């Protein structure tokens, strides 16, 4: 009996004592679910942030497993930046339950990119016989440059509130980033004019935001149903669907298997390419600028 009381008492003491949130010159600890958000936080936060990216460009962000190492990082995070829209639903919820109080839902440290942009491809109907549908729409929001601006704006506000002393610093870095980014957008758009209205087939619909922005057409994918690997019957169907109106390109991310796109590429003599998709997707894609440069280069040439 006394032992039980003792245990509860010690829990209670732990709750009331030993809580001292004070920010010295330490960098803000950021847990980014994907490399694109890690890169964006670094653009805004510079040396005043310490960013951990839970996944790499070679990992499918929907299918990674919660790893013990992620727990160690999320426990101490002050800002969480993820895509949201159920992209991380298979692993983030269980990490979040053990994460720091600052990054819980509705807290300043909880930032889901999809909550701040207009998502596309929202399903009319939720039925898993149509694949793994996300009611919130397509979660791969980082490939529209205007979405990057919206999220960057939010990141700089959040950083400024988490680390009040650095507010002016984040504001300045954000302004610099914003003007550079706004200058880059028309250059990319101009470059991609030549491929406007052309048809692109991705493995999975994870680059739709870029295609929509650049005016490319992309209604079909190698995956017949999202989340279910391409089936031969569907690939054959694609050949007949296109007939003589050959698509411009078959594309996939570095984390998707090569076989289906190579097979279709051989059959219809359309080039297939691996687009970097996110930071680190190839040697050229070191930051958001070079990622966009590279994506568009590969799409155009």
């Amino acid at each position, binding site marked *: 009996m006394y032992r039980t009381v003792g245990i509860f008492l010690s829990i209670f003491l732990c709750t009331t004592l030993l809580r001292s949130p004070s920010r010295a010159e330490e960098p803000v600890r950021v847990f980014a679910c994907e490399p694109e958000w890690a890169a964006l936080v670094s653009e805004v936060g510079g040396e005043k942030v310490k960013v951990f990216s839970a996944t790499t460009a070679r990992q499918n962000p929907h*299918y990674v497993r919660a790893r013990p190492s992620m727990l160690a990082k999320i426990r101490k995070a002050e800002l969480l930046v993820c895509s949201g829209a*159920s992209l991380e639903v298979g692993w983030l919820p269980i990490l979040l339950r*053990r994460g720091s109080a600052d990054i819980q839902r509705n*807290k*300043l440290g909880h930032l889901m990119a999809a*909550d701040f942009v207009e998502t596309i491809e929202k399903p009319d109907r939720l039925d898993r016989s149509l694949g793994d549908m996300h009611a919130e729409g397509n979660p791969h929001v980082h490939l529209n440059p205007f979405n990057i601006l919206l999220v960057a*704006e939010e990141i700089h506000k959040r950083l400024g509130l988490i680390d009040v002393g650095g507010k002016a610093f984040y504001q300045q870095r954000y302004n610099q980033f914003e003007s550079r980014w706004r200058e880059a957008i028309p250059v990319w758009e101009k470059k991609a004019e030549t491929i406007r209205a052309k048809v692109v087939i991705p493995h999975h619909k994870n680059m739709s935001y870029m295609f929509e922005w650049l005016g490319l057409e992309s209604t079909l994918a190698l995956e017949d149903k999202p*989340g279910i690997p391409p089936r031969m019957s569907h690939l054959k169907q694609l050949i007949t669907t296109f007939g003589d109106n050959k698509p411009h390109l078959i594309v996939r991310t570095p984390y998707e298997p090569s076989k289906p796109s190579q097979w279709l590429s051989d059959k219809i003599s359309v080039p297939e390419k691996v687009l970097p998709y996110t930071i680190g997707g190839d040697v050229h894609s070191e930051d958001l600028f070079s990622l966009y440069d590279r994506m568009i280069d590969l799409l155009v040439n």
Partner: protein
Amino acid sequence: MNMLIRIVFAALLVVPIGGISRADSGDAASAIRAEIEAIRSSYESRILELESRIAKIEEGETSTNGSTVLANTTTQRKVFGRDFNPSIGVVLNGRFARFTEDTGEIPGFGIGHEGERGREGVGISHSELNFSANVDDKFFGSLTAALVREDGEDKVELEEAYIQTLPGLGLFEGLTVKAGRALWTLGYLNEHHVHTDDFADRPLPYRVFLNGIFNDDGVEVSYLLPTDFYSEIGGGVFRGDDFPFGGSDGEGIDAWSLFARVGGDIGENQNWRLGGSLLSGKAYGGRNTEEGAQSFVGDTDLYVADLRYTWAPTGNPKTSELILQGEYFWRDEKGTYADSEEGTGAVAFDDTLEGWYAQAVYKFKPQWRLGLRYGQLDQPDVPLGLVGSSFDSQGFEPSTFSAMLDWTNSEFSRMRIQFNRENLASGYSDDQFIFQYIMSFGAHGAHKY
């Protein structure tokens, strides 16, 4: 909001009145016009005032300084997701099994019902219904009911019904308390629901030492240490009713546990987790098996060491992955065993017993996995009084070998064939063939690490 409705309403009124008034003439018309003008100017000023308030909010000039609230940040778009409250998940699990031997008993070990090999033939096994949600900002709750067929009857087993503190409660950072009934932290597999297992049945030591799972009623505290790699320590106190304990009268705490785990990544492709646990308690009311024919009364200490290692090229388990997993059990018991059918009476017992399993699962294609598993128990010493009873293993060391192949269509469906060769008693070799399906619908589950 209310104000806005009033403005809109007024505007709607003003428009048609304006239309009618044009048809009129004289004093009446001008009086109405004046009235309209008055309404209009009054509302225009109000609209202006509201607009300036909106602007102020947007500029972040709210009364609070936005220390913990989101007042200063852009208004979030309302996202209506699949993230319903509560999330409801259903797991359907069915199988077909063929065994070459008539019985699946393991003489000498006094195993419980869940430790046996399951039913032969076509049948459903372990259908699960799960409800879970954040109760509020401070608590998470989860309830899992398993519908099972036992002794010719469909039964509901309450597998889990627990609450867990969320970081919002403001406990010391990294500390979590879980209370109720849960798959408690013990070894690797105990925390995991059976449907997420890599094989159609639990490994031999789980069947013998824990009767499948340990989910007593109790409270568990765990603390995630502030280290750069993963490390967690904790412990729990339990009622002492679930196997390997039993018959608790609820006075005091009859069982408790301690655990420590560490883990981390090795480069991008590999990660590992190592853990040690101790589960200790008394079965003063008796751990009864075989419909009460066998019983153990006394103290049990169970030590478990677990290791799990995964390797996936570029850390992308979606395409290809190798999982190695093993657990070692060491049980120390002191008490009395009795077999009422053989009329042994209470025979004093003070000895230890070991068991272990190791398994490898390899995903060789995105939808296909192959697994091998070996499990073994050491032979327990048999006191003189138990010779010839159901607790007499006759010096045999039981072992099981399993091979499985499974196909995963989506995150929500999996089918599996498995072959087991179980050598559980001397002169006995049971070849088992199992076909199994596991399907889930409802909430998108998140699996434990």
